[in-house]
Structures are given as structure tokens and as C-alpha cells.
């Protein structure tokens, strides 16, 4: 047990933890990112080439990655 933690808590009084995306906008952000990701995926599916793997795959993966995390949170599974 570390009895100094009371002071640590008091010292941090002015800086509550605020997430990058607030709870109320998680679903909108997640939905849009997933839509963008699926859109890029569809375009890549029709134009499969080595160049399109980084060109379309990277933004699609990035959008789906962040979108998935926020969609989990938006539906109540706070990861």
C-alpha cells in the first residue's frame, strides 16, 4: 500500500482524463470510419494491383482499425 497516493490524486485535481473522442460522438466517428474503410476495400477489390495494396490498403486498414475500436466502445463494450 502506498499512502502517498492521496496526495497524487489531489495534485492531479485540475486534469481529469478526457478521451480523444467523447462518448456521444463515438458511434458517428466509428460509422464514418468503417464506411470509408469498406468503400476503399470495395474499390481495391475491383482494382487489385501491387500499387493499390499500399495506396488503397493503408487508408482502408487505418480507417477500419480505428473505426472498429470506436464501434466496440459505441455499442457498450468499452475496450
Amino acid at each position, binding site marked *: 500500500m502506498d499512502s502517498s497516493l492521496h496526495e497524487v490524486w489531489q495534485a492531479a485535481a485540475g486534469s481529469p482524463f478526457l478521451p480523444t473522442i467523447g462518448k456521444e460522438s463515438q458511434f458517428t466517428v466509428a460509422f464514418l470510419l468503417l464506411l470509408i474503410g469498406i468503400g476503399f476495400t470495395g474499390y481495391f477489390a475491383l482494382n487489385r494491383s501491387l500499387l493499390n495494396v499500399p495506396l488503397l490498403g493503408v487508408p*482502408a486498414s487505418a480507417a477500419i482499425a480505428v473505426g472498429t*475500436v470506436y464501434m466496440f466502445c459505441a455499442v457498450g463494450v468499452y475496450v
Partner: protein
Amino acid sequence: MKPSTIATALLGLACSAFASSQQSTVKLPADFKPPQVFKNANLVHIISLEKNYVKEQVNVLIENTAAEPQEEYFLPFTADQLSRVGGFEVKDRKDTAAGPFTVDVVNYDSASSTQYYRIRLPAPLKSGGQQTLGITFYYLSAYRPLPASIPQEATQYLSYEFSPYAQSAYPTVKQKTEVKAASATIPDYTKVEGHGDVAEFPQKQGSKLTYGPFGEKAAGASLPASVRFEFNKPVTHISELERDIEVSHWGGNVAFEERYVLHHQGANLSSQFNRVKWAQSQYFNPASHALKEMRFPLQVGSVDTYFTDTIGNVSTSRFRSNKREALLELKPRYPIFGGWKYPFTIGWNSNAANFVRKTATGGFVFKAPFLEGPKQAEGVEYENINVRVLLPEGAENVKLLADVPESSIVETTVDVHKTYLDTIGRTAVTIKARNLVDEFKDRDLIIYYEVPSAMTLRKPLVIFASFLTVYAAAWAIGKVEVGFGQK
């Protein structure tokens, strides 16, 4: 409380961080007997039977009778009492600024009928010196309903056995025991021979019985006595409480879930439960020893509450939430009578900003009540408490403070728990405690931790890599010629 730090660094991918600490006990030789170095110059013992647990306060003026300074004071319990005692705290009654008293359970001969708690004074007491100790502890499962079975609408009586001479490992010069019952209806109590001008003890004033003052008694003096009093309220006992707190940085949320196994330890029903009589009694005679409602005052800002049991959602709950309070009112699926059991689960969410703060050094500090639980006029006792805090994935350098008596904490571990979207798993801080009561509801649990930014980005990075692999694989597989070639 003995200050010690639990710090853990999470290592690599597959390596699970693990740290653990055990209950504060002190090992002494099997033939241990407390040295006769103190005497109790004056002792007031208050036994409070007002709640469904017993609260005992021993206010004692101790005097060092040895030639050398002494700092270890022992308090005896029977082996049965030791398994049910908890919430042991010691204060200096005259000097509140006196340093902390360290309390340990003495581990010497498990077969002995007498066991001890050791109280280490903040500073050694010099020869002939005196100090006033205020010792408080609680007994769980302390009562016996008498009669053991009663009709549904009858009044419940509880019986409690005690000794008018306070338990002590030292001689006591002068002492007095006060028993405060839950009501003034005390049909039976043990009468003992008086001392001085008084012919017979106890003296009864309303709901209070006073035994003493008694003259000098030897160490270990005991006198069997019992009191039987009216207690027409539920004797609520939580045999198991699992409290999970999940901190999410991505979601900005702290999720709580509490799983209770609740028992009513009062008088059993002497005949079958009668639903019609029960419904009637709600109109003309609401006083009953059955538990029919619980009120959970949650932290302001709590949302998304739920109340389920083994069947599923229980719809008889109400959640009042506004700027000043967040009160969850539950009605169990059935009224709970003596000998009945009701396991149930409640849960709720809250914004992380209410519980987590960022420190100047880049770490995070989390604070929540160690216990919440129902607020009942008759009190609630908890036998086994398992508080588990799931910190974000990759949290490291964990330090914690549980502001409950250290002798009640059985084990503290820092481990790893894997759940959705986790690759290395979340840091799980588990604190197991025993024998606490609802008077410890407002005590804090504070945890400091650090999360490197690479760890924060771990979840999206893993998904990113997985999807990029899928695209690369889709392209590569598309290149494979599977048709018949032209000749």
C-alpha cells in the same frame, strides 16, 4: 496501516506481469504466550448490537508494568471469533496525531483455542507510561435467531453470547461493559453478581445494558453471558461480493459490475411461505424481518444501470439520477426470509473523467470507493470481497492504496486479464478482503499506473496489420493462375 509499495512492470508480449502480497501476519513460536508487561488501568467495552453485525469498541488505558519500554500489545480471540472478526482498527483516543498503529494477526499454533491480534504502538511506551487505545472491530455471523423458526408475520428475536469481562491478555484493574441492543425489548439477559454498592448487574436503561464497573480481574478472565433482543429487520449477510471495475481509455468510460451472493441469517419460516399473507401484510403491518428492498447510492454521474439474477433481468428496480444523487432502488424477485439466499448482479457505467486523472508526470491515477453496496438501516456485512480493477492494456508501474484495515486484506495481486481486442491482456489489480461491514463503504481505492503511448495504440495497430495482410493476400491470391492455359 503499514506503508509498502506494490509496483509491477509488464515485460514483453507473452510475459504476464504478476505480483502478489499476502495478509499481514506475524509468525511466532508455537508455545507463544503474551509477555505480562502491561496492565489495563481502566477499560470500557462497548458491544453494539444495533446492526446485523456486532461492533465492539474497547477503549483501554494501558500501562507498561515492565522495566523496559514496550511496543507490542496483544488482544486475544477464540479460534471461532478469529474467523469472523474483521475491520480491526486502533486509534489513540487522546492524541489523534499519534502515528499509525500496525495490526497483525499472530500466526503461532493453529490448534490453540486462543489466537491473538498484535497491535504495535507507534512509539515504544516507557516503563510506567500510559496510553489510551481505542480498538474497534466487528464480528460477522454473530447472532443466533431464537426461536430459530417463526411464523411469517411473527417478530424476530436474536441472541448474542458475550463475556461481561472484556477479553484481555493482561490483568484489568477496572472495567465496564455496555451492551447496546437494537431495541428496548430485551426479554432475556444474563444477570451477574454486582460489585461495590450494586447488588446485581446489568443496569438496564432503555436499549442499553451496563455490566460493571468490576474490580480487578486476572488476564484471560471470562464469564459466559447472553442477551436476547428484538430485531425485526433482515440479518443480511453477503457471503461473496465480486466487484469488477473496468477502466477504458479509448471509450472514456469506467464500467462497474458487482455480483452478490446474499443470505438472510435470521429466523427461518416455521411453515410454507404464504404469498397472500405477505401481500396483506404490505398494507397493515409493514414491519417484517424479510428483506424486500435495497437502496444503492451510486456515484453521481452513473448511467446505464442494470439488475439481473440467475433468471435474467429483474424489472423491479428504479434508478433516480440527477445532479445531486444517483440512487438505484432494487426489489429482489421475492422477499428474502431467514435461511433464504439471493444471488444477483448489478452494474453501471460512468465517465472516466469522474474517476481517472492525469498526473504531471504523464501517469494516470484512478480513485473509486473500495466498497459501494446497499445502504440499509440495519447494516450489511461482507464475508469475502474480491475487488478487481481492469486497467487499460499494457498499464505498468502499478501502485495501489486500499484505505481499509490492512488486517482485513487477504491478498493483493497484479495480474493480466485478456478480453475483447486484447493481445497482451489488460493489467488486472485484484484485492481480496474478508469480514468487512458497510461502515467501510466510503473508504477509497486509489491506483496509480502508466500507459506508454505505443501500448495505447496497440489495439488499432493490430487491426491495421491484420487488414493490410488481408489486402496483400487478396492481391497475391488474385495473381495465382488457376485456369487451364492456352496451348
